[in-house]
């Protein structure tokens, strides 16, 4: 099975990365990382290993692996859902950040769209 992470280089994004690595290690699964920022650079496995060296090692020791992939559609949330469907993922992990009521009213949210559109369970993680 597979866990898909909606990756963003932010506090909630890093919290989500840690949670996703633990989830994948628990089940000795593959973690597929998808960039969920607009126009953001696609992360490399080395970048991720630098962020969470211990957890990545733990996942590898457990027999899992980390790979980076991307969808073929422009919108980041659609891309995450698309990749999750292509891998038939067990779980999608997203980071949530605090948003003011006004911010919620005016602007949408990538995380929210993933929550609503995903066809598998979603784990939402907040930064500590």
């Amino acid at each position: 099975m597979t866990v898909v992470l909606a990756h963003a280089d932010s506090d909630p994004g890093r919290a989500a990365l840690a949670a996703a690595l633990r989830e994948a290690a628990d089940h000795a699964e593959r973690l597929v990382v998808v960039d969920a920022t607009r126009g953001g650079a696609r992360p490399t496995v080395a970048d991720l290993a630098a962020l969470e060296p211990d957890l990545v090692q733990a996942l590898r020791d457990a027999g899992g692996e980390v790979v980076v992939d991307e969808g073929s559609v422009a919108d980041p949330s659609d891309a995450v859902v698309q990749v999750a469907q292509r891998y038939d993922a067990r779980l999608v992990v997203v980071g949530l950040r605090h948003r003011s009521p006004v911010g919620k009213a005016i602007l949408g949210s990538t995380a929210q769209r993933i929550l609503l559109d995903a066809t598998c369970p979603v784990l939402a993680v907040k930064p500590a």
Partner: protein
Amino acid sequence: MLDSALTALGSLTDPSLLVMLAVGVLAGLVIGLIPGLGGTGAVAILLPLTFGMDPAPALAMLIGALAVVHTSDTVAAVLLGAPGSASASVTMLDGYSMARNGEAKRALSLAFLSSMAGGIIGALGLTLAIPLARPLVLSFASPELFMLTILGVSLAAVLSRGNVVKGLVAGFLGLLLGLVGTSPTTAEERFTFGSLFLGDGLSLVAVALGIFGLAEIAGRVSQRRVTEDSVQLTGGWFSGIREWLTHWSQVIRGSLIGIWAGVLPGVGATAGTWLAYGQAVATAKDKRKFGKGDPRGIVGPESANNSVEAGDLIPTLLFGIPGGVPSAMLLGMLLTYGIQPGPAIVSEHLDLMYLIIWSFAIASIVGAFLCFLATPSLAKLTKVPFAVLGPGLLVVMLLGAFQDSGQLGDLWIMVALGVAGWLLKATDFPRAPFLIGFVLAIPMERYYYLTANLYDGAGWMLRPGVVVFLAVLVVPVLWALFKAWRKRRATLDEGHRSEEVLEGGDELEGSLANSVWSLSVAAVVVGLFAGAWLVSGSFSEEARLMPRLVATGGLVLGLVLLVQELRARSGGRRGPRWTPDVTTAVRTFVLMGVFLGLVVVVGYLAAVLLFVPGFLLYVARASVRTSILYPIILGVVLLALPSLLPVDLPTGLLQ
């Protein structure tokens, strides 16, 4: 109203109108196949042929072409993976993948049928817009019409993709260029520098073909890569047709998105198709196959790109503000016939409105049908490299621009604007606001003059229509500022659906942004507006008003742009100095200049016979056989043309 609709349909039984419609459809299909021309190229190339025609056949021809351009542009996208127009690059995502799986016919039949339905639904939307907008339009007086012209230019600038300041600068440049010539209120000559030929203003065809057409040729002649990966036309037509019926809701949704994108000025077929694609992905539950041959990824965008052109016509005909570049040219054409879009067209020329609608619907059906019939042979045409098509297109475009005034000066201006258009494209300026500004400059001035004279003081600003338009004008500006402010605060998770181009359809677009080139463009812009401000000081008070306003606005924005550029430079973001694209463009424009020089000396026909083989051999590196046969055929066509159509060839000094 039904009366006029039926009368218009009746008038289409007139064989001469039908012939014109058929000519338009055929021309539109061929132009759609050629990369980079699209609706703009179709109207610009056909427009010169309509000089001297009555309005009805002229409209039938132009609308016929406009309605089908986006039907055939799919062929290259699906079979070659090289889109015929920027808007077809969306179809490429799923269409080309489907074709590589041996289902090219399935992809094409989905696309053709969707294009047809998009055209028909677009025509329906146009029909429904007339009774809805009619009472509104009839209540408009000059203050509202003045506001509408401002709204047209500024919305086009704000809604165009990318930097808003660049869009507004382009709009102001267009306005400034539109003011060249005789002032409509005082009959003074402005910005003509004593030249008699500039007194009439610049020719619309020359400006449009320069900014878009020649710039496109210069940007693309370097592309010689073709047929690397071309796909055989396999699969069954009928499986696609049957499948298409099951996606009817995508067709309707795509078409409605297209109409809406068309109505908004500056949001053209490209943005419309991306919106439709995004919508299809977002609403699909199973997203797995998007980008790898999902039929819904073809149906939605293909419906949208045809209905965009119909949607464009709604604001153009009813309010006199063009929704896009092709309709800006149509507007210019209607104005030369003395048909004032807006109140006049819904009260006096309703039959023409319905003629347009019928032509659009009929052309969509016929165009799709012809595409089914002719695709096997059309597919061959898409394999001709652009470098070989380039000189032929150049010859046709220059000849077209010559028909407007019969002055060679127009052609020099066209090449100069071609350079400008190329620079704007490479430094990421949207060009639609430029042309919309150019077309609307004189109406804007005229309405302002009427408003200022008919109403005391600023009382007209309080008319309800004007207040609404002011709100429409201010809200997007505030929105843009708010977005910019948010972007600076938090780069992450803006959360709106993004419809950005996934893999740029055009490599040139914006390739020179933040470079020494864009810096000099900004500097030249500032210089131009400053010069215009100084020169306009010598005009009488009434003639000075508009140029001063435009120059002041342009100057302020130009300075903002200059500061942005300098900041980007000091921030370490530096674009390329010199790229192979620049070399090709410089070479192409120099050759265009040489060609015009030849025309001045030896006349058009001889110049073509000298220039085209040279171009083919040295720039396109075509085979010797092509380089000899091609100019001969072109020469024969040029010889025969004046006897078939009302076309004049420029004569040289030696003739």
